[in-house]
Every structure is written in C-alpha cells, then in structure tokens.
C-alpha cells in the first residue's frame, strides 16, 4: 500500500481513465481562456464558461476551474473529455493518498501526477483531438504559499512567477498582465475586490479579441468563474459577490 490510486485500478480491470480513448471528442476547449495570477490574498484563478466545436458554441455554462482537493485547482484548456477525466482521476488520487496515508500529497507529487497524465495522453495529443494544456495552482503544505504552474500538452511543467494563461484568448490576458507587472498597478499587491474586478476586465478583453471566449456581462450578472487559493483553502465567488465588487468599483 503506497497510496497510489492509479496502481489500484488494474486490479478490478478498470481503465485508468479516458486516456486510452481513440474516438475524437466533439467540443474543444482550445477556444477558451483560463488564467491565474497572484494577488494580495493568494492566487486568483479565472476562466470563461464557453466550450466550442469549430465555429459552433457548444455550451456557455462550462466549468473550467476545477477543485482537485482542498488546496489544488486545475484550469482546463484543450479537449474537455480528456481534461475532465484527468481532473477526476487527480481528484480521486489526491484524496485516496490523503486518506490512506493519513497525510496530504506533497505539491511536487501532485504536479508530477498531472505531468504523468499528460504524458500518457501523448497519442491523443499527437493525433490532434485530445490535447490538453492545463494550469495548476497548489499550496505547498510546508510554507503555505500558493503557486501557479502551466504545462505544455506533452507534460512539461513550468512555474509562473506572477501569472499564467492558457487557451486561445489567453494571449490578450497575458499581454495586459505583463504590462501591469512591469508598469503597475501590480496585481500581486491588489486587494481582493480589485483583483476580482481585474480578472473580469481581463476576460472581457480576451472575449473582445477571441470569438471562442465567453465574455462577461455585468448587466446580467454574468461573470467569470473565479476561485481564490491560499493557505486557508479555496474560496469561490458567486455572481452576486462579483456584481457587488463590480458596482463598488464604478467611478
């Protein structure tokens, strides 16, 4: 017993996950925007709600920021069938390890677990239908600091010093965040209401230049999926909370 959930799966002859699937999945999240940046209260992870299949809007209620456990978030961009299965596998693996070993899995091991799933998805990535390029945000149990990581579709992992983004609309977001990092105001020192408003404005900007990114409509209280991660865990922001921040920021 070493707490490895994936090693347990072959016993009852269960497939490891959706990674062996060969059928092409219809909706694709390449047309998407997810991003994460450091703010004064932790790491804020944001995403839009849109899934597209070619030029068809497949869904406008897709959850792309997924809670893997009490201290880990995964933002998905890429093939949703594979990405969601990866998230489900990681959720079970992390909780299985924590419960069976009576201690949480280390952040390094969590990062490697996602790397391993991405590597095992190599056939899907090469065939062009199952590529996933996720973001990962996790808290190091030793020092309680939240960190942001991004991956390439083959499983290489990189730590982002200040921010990271993935999906077709992320280049606009990363450009703005780069500007702010260089010339201010710095997101890393922003209070929570300002950081939440910044995330929604960034998503509006991404939607302006990327048709596949679902935007923000404050009049309809339609905001980004937003989750804050820090040593205390994960906090999700409701539509009403975001609407209140938005209203308070109006000049």
């Amino acid at each position, binding site marked *: *017993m070493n707490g490895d*959930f994936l090693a*347990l*799966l072959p016993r*009852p002859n*269960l497939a490891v996950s959706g990674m062996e699937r060969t059928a092409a999945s219809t909706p694709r999240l390449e047309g998407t925007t997810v991003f994460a940046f450091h703010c004064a209260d932790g790491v804020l992870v944001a995403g839009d709600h849109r899934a597209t299949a070619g030029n068809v809007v497949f869904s406008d209620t897709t959850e792309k920021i997924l*809670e893997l*456990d*009490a201290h880990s978030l995964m933002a998905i961009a890429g093939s949703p069938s594979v990405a969601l299965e990866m998230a*489900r*596998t990681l959720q*079970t693996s992390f*909780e*299985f390890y924590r*419960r*069976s070993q*009576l201690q949480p899995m280390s952040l390094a091991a969590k990062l490697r677990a996602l790397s391993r799933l991405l590597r095992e998805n190599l056939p899907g990535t090469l065939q062009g239908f199952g590529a996933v390029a996720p973001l990962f945000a996790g808290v190091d149990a030793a020092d309680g600091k939240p960190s942001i990581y991004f991956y390439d579709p083959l499983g290489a992992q990189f730590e982002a010093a200040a921010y990271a983004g993935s999906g077709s609309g992320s280049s606009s977001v990363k450009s703005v965040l780069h500007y702010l990092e260089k010339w201010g105001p710095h997101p890393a020192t922003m209070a929570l209401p300002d950081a939440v408003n910044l995330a929604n404005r960034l998503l509006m900007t991404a939607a302006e230049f990327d048709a596949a990114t679902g935007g923000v409509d404050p009049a309809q209280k339609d905001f980004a999926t937003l989750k804050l991660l820090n040593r205390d865990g994960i906090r999700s922001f409701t539509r009403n909370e975001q609407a209140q921040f938005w209203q308070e920021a109006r000049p």
Partner: protein
Amino acid sequence: MTDEPYRWLEAVANRREYIRDQLKDATPAFAVSRPEGVLLMGVGVGQSKVFEIYDRLALAALGHSVDIERVRQTAIEAAHLEGFTRDPADVTLRRLLNFSLCPALKSSFEQVFAAPFLVELLMVELGSDRSSDVMARVNYDGSVRYLTGQVAVAHPSSTTESAATEWLQGQLTDDLGLKDVVSRLITAWRAMPPGKPFVTPPTDGPKDGSIPKPGLELALLDRRSSSRARYRILNPNDLA
C-alpha cells in the same frame, strides 16, 4: 480437522474465545448523530481509533492496530474504486459493508488456521439530515447491526456496550452543543475502564467530563460544510 463437524465447531468456538480474550481490555469508541453532523470519539493511547474513509464515511474502531489498519485500507480502496467507477454518490455505507467489508471479515473469521481480525468497528455515513444518517456496528466475524438510535458505542462486552448506549441516549438531549456532547461521552468512557462493566455515573453527583490526556481523538462528519469531503478533525479545546 474441518472435515469433522464437531471439531470445526469447537475450533470456531475457541476462535471466538481467543478474540474476546484479546479484545477484553480494549477501550470503547463512540459515534453520535447530531444536528452539526456525526461526531466520532475514541481515546487511544499511542494508537488512532478514528479515521476518514470517504467523503461522507468514517470509521471508529478498537482492537489490534494492524488489523484496524487492514480493515481501514480495504474500506478506503473499495470506496474510492466505487466512487471513481461510478460516482461518489454511489458510495454508501450499506453497499460498502454488504458487498466488500463484511464478506471479507466473515471469510477471514472462518479460516480457522489463519490469525483472525482482532477488531470491533463502528462505521458511519453522514446523511443530509439526522434521520438519514446511517450508523453500523460491525463485529470481528463480519456480522453487522444497523443502529436506529442516535448513539453508537463499540465495546468488547455487549452488556457494557448496551448499558453505555442506553445511558448516553438519556443524556444527549437535542439542546446540547458539541462541547457538552463530548463531555458526556468522556463521562461514559470513564465509567467503563478496561475489562470492567459500565458503572452508571451518579445522576446528581459530579461527572468527570474533563478532557483525558493524552489520546483523545475527535472527528466530525460536518453536515454544515459545502465541500465534498466532510470529515474534519476537531480540537477538543476549540469546541464551543
């Protein structure tokens, strides 16, 4: 030997006697269904008695630490495989006990040439309200009893177990907070020292509900939480 029915019966009887003798000095474990959730308590010196199994499932056990660990691992593996294969909502205590744990315990008990499991278990499932909480008392031989009351006690002696359960059911009124509930549980724990029967605490006299040191373990399957995993370890000093 097992070809001869009488000797087999004798072997099983000896086995029960051996297990009871091994467990006779074990200290009890408790589970209580409350508005806040299902509270579990154990006092184990140098040994854990209370464990998380799955999102809404938990275990309190007494017995040999290695056997508790084997049961715990089996339950965790079965629950996670089921939750992964189907859905976490399909992981229920009744299914886990009826199709995984209890058959394994019974099978092990009947292998008269192998060492038996030295365990007595309380397993609980958190429901959406108190009426849907499930508490089960599982014996070393795989027999299971689903409990209808809101208090469950696991003790090697069934007489002591019944007496303590009855006393606690009279004590744990709905208006008590978790701190007072824990205090009553500790009073009951003190009233059944290892190897001795339950002595009903005096009605009007002083009751020692102070926290024993060391080894008190408290956990709550929290009904008020919105997270998937409801198990929370409680610090007795933080209880209101």
